[in-house]
């Protein structure tokens, strides 16, 4: 039917997208998840080191192992996604905080050695490291590392949502809260990781209860920011809230990632021993998995959003 091909004034050019589709692949949401979790665990462990009781400090320091383990694959993932991986160091040839991509590369480059050094120092404390390596690791200035690492870690956890938001993709850019959403998810998954480690090694119940309180507060915060994000996004959030990515988003990111851990921690409040450890473990695993579901669904739904001509016009009209 030729009449279908006739263009209305102001109706857009056929159904061609206004934007080019982002070329990033699965490495990026995985990196956002791991980097955010590493930062969240590092910040949680450092908070316990700074203001916690002796028991808290001992148990929660395992968070440094988690931070180190999660941060190691981050740089390789980020590099693998580049069009020219052998030129990854070009990110660091200038310092340009105006570009979130540049700021993030610097934050990752700074946070990685700090997280590894602090984990080595913890390994020296627990006797995991022996001999000359132990002596070397004990030289690490812990307080300084905890403070600077937490600042760089918060930057790493906080820039990813800002980076996606600093584009013209309607799902990512319409609301200004995506950076806050990813930050909340990073902190809740990181503190959940610490809870998981603590529950597995049989931590004292007071510490587990404190971690449950922190996890629950983080989940509540995440729900609040996510609600704001969805309300502000309005129609632009449709590729996320309906269609292919609605199941991982509603069931994974919201259900498993925030509501279920809240419920489980609530049930665990008056529990003791193995039951408490079991409930804490399940809640933590759900929260961590939900965080990955959030990054992945927002990331992939963004590609759909980028190809939506009408959504692009709506965004440009404000």
């Amino acid at each position, binding site marked *: 039917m030729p009449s279908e091909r006739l263009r209305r004034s102001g109706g857009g050019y056929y159904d061609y997208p206004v934007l080019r589709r982002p070329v990033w692949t699965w490495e990026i949401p995985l990196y956002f998840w791991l980097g955010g979790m590493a930062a969240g665990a590092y910040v949680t462990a450092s908070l316990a080191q700074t203001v916690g009781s002796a028991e808290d400090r001992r148990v929660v320091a395992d968070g440094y192992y988690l931070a180190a383990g999660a941060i190691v694959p981050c740089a390789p993932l980020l590099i693998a996604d580049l069009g020219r991986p052998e030129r990854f160091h070009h990110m660091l040839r200038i310092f340009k905080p105006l570009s979130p991509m540049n700021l993030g590369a610097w934050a990752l480059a700074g946070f990685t050695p700090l997280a590894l050094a602090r984990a080595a120092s913890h390994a020296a404390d627990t006797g995991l490291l022996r001999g000359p390596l132990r002596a070397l690791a004990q030289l690490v200035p812990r307080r300084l590392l905890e403070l600077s690492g937490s600042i760089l870690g918060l930057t790493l956890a906080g820039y990813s949502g800002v980076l996606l938001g*600093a584009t013209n993709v309607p799902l990512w850019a319409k609301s200004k809260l995506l*950076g806050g959403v990813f930050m909340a998810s990073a902190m809740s998954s990181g503190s959940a990781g610490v809870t998981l480690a603590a529950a597995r090694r049989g931590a004292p119940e007071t510490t587990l209860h404190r971690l449950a309180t922190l996890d629950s507060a983080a989940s509540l915060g995440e729900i609040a920011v996510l609600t704001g994000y969805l309300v502000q996004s309005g129609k632009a959030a449709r590729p996320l809230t309906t269609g292919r990515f609605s199941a991982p988003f509603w069931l994974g990111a919201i259900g498993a990632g925030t509501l279920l851990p809240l419920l489980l921690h609530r049930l665990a409040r008056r529990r003791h021993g193995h039951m408490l450890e079991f409930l804490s473990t399940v809640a933590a695993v759900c929260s961590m998995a939900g965080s990955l579901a959030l990054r992945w669904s927002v990331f992939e739904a963004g590609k759909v959003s980028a190809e939506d001509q009408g959504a692009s016009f709506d965004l440009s009209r404000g």
Partner: protein
Amino acid sequence: MIDAYKRLMNIEEPPAAKTAKGFFTDTSLCIGCKACEVACKQWNQLPADGFAMTGNSYDNTGSLGATTWRHVQFIEQATANGTGQEQRWLMMSDVCKHCANAACLEACPTGALVRTEYGTVYVQQDICNGCGFCIPACPFGVIDRTPKDGHFEAGTAHKCTLCYDRLKDDMTPACAKSCPTASIQFGDVEELRARARRRLGELQARGESKARLYGMAEGPEAAEVGPLHAFFLLLDEPETYNLPEVPRLPRKTMAERYGWSAAVGVGFALVGALVFGGRR
């Protein structure tokens, strides 16, 4: 000391600024011959896009991309007389706008994207590492990355260079040189803007009431990305040509985005301090 460092790092002084150059694309003169597309491909040695029939009028190019730096649109409109018999055929050769505030350039983390001495936006192919951030940053969908496994400059970002190599030799860019109807006009941006205003006046006097300029400093489209160095005379609303009414510059909202992100992070740290330090 600094001089020695510059010699060591092979750092050259940037060329002195010259008169800003640009394109004025007058779509009222376009006949849809696609000579610009072909000349661009030839001069810049860009690979063919393959033969795919879109079914959308004579447009089998579809969109700008990593190896398509000029794209001729064919817009078939029914006129308002209601019979549907009479049609208006709008043609427009789209190109990188070389924005005064370029989103791609601001997004670039490596400094590969630069502003040249002619005021144009240029990708340095030896610097770009293909991070891909410029692609969703561009509000016009211009810049793109070549496939990693391709044969042409694999894995880096590409777009119109405004024939930077030709400008260096005082030559007209290939598309403007090949345009048989002067729909694509190349020159000093200031002079082109004056010419565009005169042309708009002529068309309006002849009754082309919907004619407008897109990319001038006074237009709503310049609110964030600034005036365009490659600007257009259109015969209909911008969205008819897939051009956004107000192309957005991500920098404008960045501080607010970081603010929310930081607020959530600080909030978590405060709650954590209360939880671990509170009861003792």
